[in-house]
């Protein structure tokens, strides 16, 4: 997994709250047994006019040409609610969005995104509202997200701090695999297992 240090990219505004994982990747695409091939179906029901996905919906904002190389997605509260499917972050990442800015994220989605080398950035509702308006007023505007300093630079140049737990920050910066991290503590796991009562083993 490649690490994330600093990203300068076009930011795409998705002006909706409660975007759920069924919307991000509808269930008919969950029948794959690999981790790839989900990007083209990301936001399927909004992105395409037909079930087969052959007619692109020109009204869906992320379909606009200016957003085709965007790596930052800015959206509203409770992003990623609903199903635990990790296909949602896989799909978003494959579509190009490695960084997502929102006032809040659903708990399972937040963890899944981090586990896939994506950066979910929580900013206040007011700040997101300001950024959203700037992006809508100026399609194709760029933003900077710097993980090292934990800052975001809005299109108008204002800099905002964000918070991320040190462990996740380390893993993202270095592109660490979390199983490898845990396996360093195999002794602690064995010690724990030795003490498990009979009814629980």
């Amino acid at each position: 997994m490649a690490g994330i240090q600093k990203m300068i990219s076009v930011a795409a505004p998705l002006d909706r709250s409660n975007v759920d994982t069924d919307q991000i990747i509808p269930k008919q695409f969950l029948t794959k047994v690999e981790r790839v091939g989900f990007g083209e179906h990301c936001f399927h029901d909004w992105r395409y006019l037909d079930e087969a996905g052959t007619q692109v919906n020109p009204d869906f904002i992320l379909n606009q040409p200016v957003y085709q190389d965007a790596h930052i997605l800015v959206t509203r509260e409770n992003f990623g609610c609903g199903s635990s499917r990790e296909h949602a972050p896989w799909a978003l990442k494959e579509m190009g969005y490695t960084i997502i800015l929102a006032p809040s994220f659903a708990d399972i989605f937040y963890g899944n995104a981090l586990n896939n080398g994506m950066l979910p950035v929580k900013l206040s509702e007011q700040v997101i509202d300001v950024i959203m308006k700037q992006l809508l007023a100026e399609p194709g505007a760029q933003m900077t997200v710097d993980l090292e300093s934990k800052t975001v630079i809005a299109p108008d140049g204002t800099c905002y701090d964000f918070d991320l737990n040190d462990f996740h920050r380390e893993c993202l910066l270095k592109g660490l695999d979390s199983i490898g991290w845990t396996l360093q503590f195999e002794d602690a796991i064995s010690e724990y297992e030795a003490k498990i009562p009979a009814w629980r083993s």
Partner: protein
Amino acid sequence: MGQTLYEKVFNAHVVREVAGETPLIYIDRQLAHEVTSPQAFSGLRATGRKMRQPSKTIATMDHNVSTRSLAIDACGDQSETQLRTLRANCEEFGVELFGLGHINQGIVHVMGPEQGLTLPGTTIVCGDSHTATHGAFGAISFGIGTSEVEHVMATQTLKQPRFKTMKVQVNGKLHESLSAKDVILAIAGVTTSSGGTGYAIEFCGTAIEALSMEGRMTLCNMSIEIGAKVGMIAPDQTTIDYVEGRPFAPKGDAWDEAVEYWSTLKSDDDAEFDAVVELNADDISPMVTWGTNPGQVIGVNDPIPSPADFTDAVAADSCAKARSYMGIKDGQKLTDLAIDVVFIGSCTNGRIEDIRAVAEVAQGKKVAENVEAIVVPGSGLVKKQAEDEGLDKILIDAGFEWRLPGCSMCLAMNDDKLGAGQRCASTSNRNFEGRQGRGGRTHLVSPSMAAAAAIAGRFADVREI
């Protein structure tokens, strides 16, 4: 200061906890199914890692099995590939599997408790967000993503933050025609669909204590629908009676030791919660969702909200979007809405008690013309029990279809799905746009309300049927 139930169980599972790091906790049990496990198994294979404790993971087939046929290829090539992949992975890694046609096969969250895999005071995970169901036994149980499934396979642990705690207390007495589903929907109406985000919930109060294990599972199942990964209920005699004697439950001395420990699993009197929500069961009426998230819910006779009822611009907008998606016109009441499909099943309401409730309402009546009503038992054992009690006959005579176990129209990955614009009274847990089929309109209800809707052809107050 005392500890909450959640804190007690969490503390008993800490493997490593260091300041600045997310705690590492031990996982007692993992449940697996065909949709969220293949990439985890292939991850192990790619890195040459083994499963640490294969006997602590149990698998079943549920998400995309057919409810009409036991053939493995009944739902198309890709589903067949997933089912075959699961079978091959379980063989290769030594995981016990309840596959198609096995009497124990069923929805993970129905199968686990039935088998005694779900025990108080344990940690249980599964790649499905409704894993909180098992919290009904006083377990910390939550849905995880596929990377975490792989993490548990390789290490039998997970990194989990300590959540804030929320107490949801429901006192009073529920009307006899109402059930746990009405209670959780009423709670969602108060908290909204995201009010529980970041919390582990403990449900308590006299109305909760009065619930059967089935009812408690329905309640905890929908914790995620109010945003909480974890929902729990303190174990009591009802819990112990349910668990005793089940295939995977402890036996002999281990059982006695367990029961003694379980009696300590309740929040201390002086434990503090970060948030408290209180409801009175006497005030709850049969609940029906009108919108596209479970928090958009009202009593069956209440007026459907319109955007003008909200001061918050985001809520008003989400109300307008939901009304338009759901095809609700000005002045319409829930009882005016004609139903096309009725779905009874899912890990929320696919247990024996749910099927009994439907049969009770349906007995001697007929499903309305133009309504397609299907009943999908949650597991092979539920199906058998219902048939032993003759419930299948009552349902078939009334015009319901009696199907094979699986998730079915809860997420419509198989061929049970809504067509665009079709309106469904569903006992499942999610009414998101397109959840039951592109353009399909889902209204969440209890099993008896679903049965009442099937018979009336529109939503009806089950207390009046």
